[in-house]
């Protein structure tokens, strides 16, 4: 079943379908569709929201919390990107929360690219100005930042694996950039 929206009879066209990039040291692949919510809330609502989501919303900058297929990524002091790669609609879980918040479905606004391998860090650092050394950007670290000329959300999912979220129409640029950068992913 296609994730990120309720089932429909219509064909879903994914922006990066069929693309793959990288080579020996790095693999670049489009991620599967997912449910995504842009969540905004103040501290007093976090308890209720966390309960509804079944995970503790992180409050530490540059961090994330994952439970099962669901992750909350800290983007700002009152802002999270929620991603669920399973088949549970985040919006439905949040619909019942009364505490003051804003939840907006952005499942299809974003698309994601998975960059992995020994050369992943070097590939991303071709366009991302942040320090991605493990000590500075550990597993689970998340940051909105830039890649070349676009904005991305960068999430380190493993020592050698990253998930890059970007807006749909920038995904072609992001994918092409990463593929080009991977040519020089000498670690």
């Amino acid at each position: 079943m296609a994730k990120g929206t309720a089932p429909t009879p219509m064909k879903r066209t994914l922006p990066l379908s069929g693309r793959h990039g990288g080579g020996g040291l790095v693999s670049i692949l489009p991620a599967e569709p997912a449910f995504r919510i842009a969540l905004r809330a103040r501290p007093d609502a976090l308890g209720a929201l966390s309960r509804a989501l079944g995970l503790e919303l992180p409050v530490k900058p540059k961090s994330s919390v994952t439970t099962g297929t669901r992750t909350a990524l800290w983007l700002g002091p009152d802002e999270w990107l929620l991603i669920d790669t399973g088949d549970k609609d985040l919006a439905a879980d949040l619909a019942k929360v009364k505490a003051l918040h804003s939840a907006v479905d952005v499942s299809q606004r974003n698309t994601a690219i998975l960059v992995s391998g020994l050369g992943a860090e070097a590939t991303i650092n071709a366009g991302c100005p942040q320090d991605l050394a493990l000590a500075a950007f550990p597993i689970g670290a998340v940051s909105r930042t830039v890649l070349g000329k676009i904005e991305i959300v960068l999430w380190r999912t493993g020592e050698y694996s990253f998930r890059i979220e970007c807006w749909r129409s920038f995904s072609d640029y992001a994918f092409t950039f990463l593929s080009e950068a991977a040519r020089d992913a000498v670690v």
Partner: protein
Amino acid sequence: MLLIHCPYCEEERPEIEFRHAGEAHLVRSSDIATQGELEFAAYLYLRQNPKGVVAERWRHIHGCGRFFNAIRDTVSDRILTTYKAGEPMPDLDSVLANAENTAPSGKPLMQPVASKSKA
């Protein structure tokens, strides 16, 4: 490319994640509709533009998205401190004193040992 401490992300980030947003602590009148002509023009257009320490606004637009304020020396471009939007401007004297303490020593590691041979 400057390195800017974001008070919300609690770390230094590269300038290209940020957008400068002009002089800080300009007060938009609570009764702006009836504000006097000169006062409004001053609010809209007149700027301190100092050669030296300036309080200015930045937005971590490609980061946490927050607006915040910075105290920066416009001669060295060194950012002396940053603080969250809505917080009062910190005491300049202590900011400057602290900057003084953390400034590069200005001294070479050792005095060079000069040889005396000369033309």
